[in-house]
């Protein structure tokens, strides 16, 4: 029996991920090629419809380019768009299930968000009419648009928001990501986190000053479902598979692991919807998605697989590319030996074969990451460099560790921390996945040379996330961060998210870092904020809990006859940010 504390597998629990408005991402994956992995949110997007993708795009290159020349064509109604997503989702209830990138692709069609990002990554009201902070940024008053109804005819009002919030707060896992930011429930079961003011207005009460709270409302927390449906789903959880929102498309049917269908909402409050229907098909093999696109079996796909993006570009497909989202990295659990010792962590990071990884796994097409932010971000700290490829420097650290602490116990493997001067460790990843196994091969080869005895552990995605959540791991490959608003990513870093179940997966509590991160979340001065995030970047690097491999590059690709990509204009006249973390908006899309 392998020492897998906790035991078996967790179903459904991807939940942890993507939680609530915090579009979280996290996922056991590298970027990879053939497999699933869930992801969540992201950052800026760049888009260029017509033409092949541009290189790594940055925050500046935004949406203007998306308004491509083709737009002089008049949209036509009709057509069914087939969209290949990288994995299926457990459920489609934004208040009960954790939503990953493929989940957002589907849910964006069915639900509207209270706020959405505009092209400058500012969260602006959408289903909400306005959002107003108190002076200390701890209370946010959100006023809803009038006259909107859900697909089932229920009106959108403050009570609907209360039902959504309470369903989320009582959920098993999505709640973990929002609870750290709101006061705990009162003894009588009432919720001090939200307060109804009038029929269309509520106030969210936060624990800390959050100058960017609307960013949370662009994700799971801000997706509003029909209260009638949500209440019914509490009684009959199978309803989590058939969502009811206010969005441009109405859920029509779902056959798990094969296809989820949505059809046009004829009276969408925000205007016309062109497509008759969209079929979302999970295809976990990234190469197969491209193959299906080439065979015209599908009309759209999303992918993070570099070679796929390259092929799609060569074939001239329309692509929207975004590299500001998550990062792929190795992650280390510092709660248990051997990696509670910084020398062991530093040795692991020094020995990491980062060049090899770029060359073989990313086929030389990716961009190395040194931290959470792409170089074009104001928050990027140019002084922070990800160490790696230095086995010679790692070896003495391993020797030193083993000499001093080699007879302690690695609880995960139930062995001593060192055997014959080599550190015993487990490397865990989500599988089965060929790419993930190849990543493990590469890491294992380099780490063995540096003096680590690597035990491999490949387990299903859900289980993998559950094991990481309860701290039953040494080292994993992972993918997360990259929310357009960095404050949203604090949930992965703060001390308060450490517990029996942690979202601070490495269990690295650093009070000083918390202070910096919370100060940045409360700061409205861009310069101060940027310098705070840069400071935090250094602190993250110094702890050696993440070994950054590369920035994830998300591409959303479309067939030639698909138009109107990224055309949504916001109520205030600005252009909406089009794609985020692999998910975007299909309300303006049409086909010929």
């Amino acid at each position, binding site marked *: 029996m392998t020492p897998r504390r906790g035991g078996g597998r967790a179903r459904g629990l991807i939940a942890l991920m993507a939680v609530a408005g915090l579009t979280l991402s996290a996922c056991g994956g590298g970027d990879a*090629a053939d497999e699933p992995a869930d992801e969540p949110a992201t950052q800026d997007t760049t888009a260029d419809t017509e033409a092949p993708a541009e290189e790594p795009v940055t925050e500046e290159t935004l949406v203007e380019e998306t308004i491509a020349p083709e737009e002089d064509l008049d949209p036509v109604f009709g057509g069914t768009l087939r969209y290949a997503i990288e994995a299926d989702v457990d459920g489609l209830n934004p208040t009960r299930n954790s939503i990953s990138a493929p989940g957002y692709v589907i849910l964006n069609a069915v639900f509207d968000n209270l706020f959405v990002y505009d092209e400058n990554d500012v969260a602006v009201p959408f289903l909400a009419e306005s959002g107003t902070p108190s002076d200390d940024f701890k209370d946010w008053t959100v006023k809803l648009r009038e006259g909107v109804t859900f697909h089932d005819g229920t009106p959108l009002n403050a009570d609907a928001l209360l039902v959504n919030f309470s369903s989320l707060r009582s959920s098993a896992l999505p709640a973990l990501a929002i609870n750290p930011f709101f006061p705990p429930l009162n003894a009588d079961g009432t919720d001090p986190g939200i307060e109804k003011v009038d029929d269309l207005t509520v106030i969210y009460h936060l624990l800390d000053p959050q100058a960017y709270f609307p960013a949370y409302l662009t994700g799971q927390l801000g997706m509003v479902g029909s209260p009638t449906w949500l209440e019914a789903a509490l009684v009959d959880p199978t309803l989590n598979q058939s969502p009811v929102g206010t969005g441009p498309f109405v859920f029509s049917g779902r056959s798990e692991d094969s296809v989820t269908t949505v059809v046009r909402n004829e009276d969408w409050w925000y205007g016309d919807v062109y497509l008759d229907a969209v079929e979302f098909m999970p295809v976990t093999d990234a*190469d197969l998605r491209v*193959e299906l696109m080439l065979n015209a079996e599908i009309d759209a796909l999303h992918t993070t697989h570099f070679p796929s993006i390259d092929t799609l570009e060569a074939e001239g497909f329309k692509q929207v590319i975004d590299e500001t989202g998550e990062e792929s990295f190795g992650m280390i659990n510092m709660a248990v030996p051997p990696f509670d010792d910084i020398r062991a962590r530093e040795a692991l990071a020094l020995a990491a074969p980062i060049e090899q990884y770029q060359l073989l796994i990313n086929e030389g097409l990716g961009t190395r990451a040194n931290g959470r932010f792409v170089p074009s971000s104001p928050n990027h700290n140019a002084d922070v460099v990800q160490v790696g490829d230095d086995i010679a420097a790692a070896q003495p650290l391993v020797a030193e560790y083993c000499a001093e602490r080699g007879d302690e116990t690695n609880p995960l493997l139930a062995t001593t921390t060192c055997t014959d001067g080599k550190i015993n460790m487990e490397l865990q990843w989500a599988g*089965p996945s060929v790419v993930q196994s190849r990543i493990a091969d*590469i890491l294992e080869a380099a780490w063995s040379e540096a003096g680590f005895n690597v035990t491999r552990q490949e387990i299903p995605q859900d289980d993998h996330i559950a094991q990481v959540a309860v701290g039953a791991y040494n080292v994993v490959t992972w993918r997360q961060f990259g929310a357009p608003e960095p404050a949203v990513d604090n949930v992965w870093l703060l001390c308060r998210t450490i517990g029996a179940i942690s979202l601070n997966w490495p269990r690295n509590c650093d009070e000083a870092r918390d202070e910096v991160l919370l100060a940045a979340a409360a700061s409205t001065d861009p310069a101060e904020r940027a310098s705070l995030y840069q400071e935090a970047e250094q602190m993250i690097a110094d702890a050696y809990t993440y070994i950054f491999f590369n920035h994830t590059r998300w591409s959303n690709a479309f067939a030639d006859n698909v138009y109107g990509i990224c055309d949504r204009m916001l109520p205030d006249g600005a252009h909406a940010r089009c794609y985020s973390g692999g998910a975007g908006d299909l309300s303006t899309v049409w086909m010929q």
Partner: protein
Amino acid sequence: MSEPSAETGVTVPMAAEPGRVQRRIGIGFWLSMSWIVLVVLAAVLAPWLPLKDPDANYIVTGTRPPYGPSWTHPFGTDQDARDLFSRVIFGARTSLIIGFVAISFGMIIGGGLGIIAGYYRKWVDRTISVVMLILLSFPALILAILITSLIDRGLFTISVTLGILAIAPVGRLARAATLSFAEREFVTAARSLGASNGRIIVRELLPNVVIPMAALALLGMAVAIVAEGGLAFLGLSIEKGFTWGKLILYGAGARDLERAPWISFAPILVLFITVLALNYAGDRIRDYFDVKEISL
């Protein structure tokens, strides 16, 4: 015998024509055995053969792997520029160990139970037959993934799991063979001379049961090797190291298949020839010793 037949434990009659038993074992048999010996030798001696390191990345600067077959890499390389020729040979080590351990386990447990059932008959036979029947009613592959996913994915677990699957078919054959010999003159003679049951089983029955079992052992080894490939395909083969099944899986993605079919096809070819050789040799042994009357 075919893979499906092994799964159900039904032995499919071979093509040998009725009334015409070939008494020569034939050149095909020797060819098959030579291949098997070659593969086994290569696997055993792999570390001492002048092979490339199966785990090293032979990247040619400025180019992107995978590389096609060439003089330096007769089978080409995989996506990580690892030499497939040496990987196939090193993969044979694990695949053959799994096949060998599995069938040995099946032979010892299944053969033992079968002989005991066939010799003692009565309730012993009935009890053992019921156990076999239960084992046979389990869809084999489902049982295998169930066990490996509940326990672990080590070499030992996987070998023994596949061995458990072999118990019932081997047991049935051993029982049938024993039944057919138990009433023969030499056994009755031994019994009348006062030989103990144990002695009769070991001295008189075992040597006669061994030949049909040997034929089945070769076939069973082929089935076990293939079954490991099936597990690998579902991502449930051994965690550390690689087998033929895992090598095939590494190249089975749509794009790799299209641009670099050799990644999958090289191990498929070697696996196929080996399975073919084992099947053919097993068939020939069975026909040669004319054991078909005791097949089920």
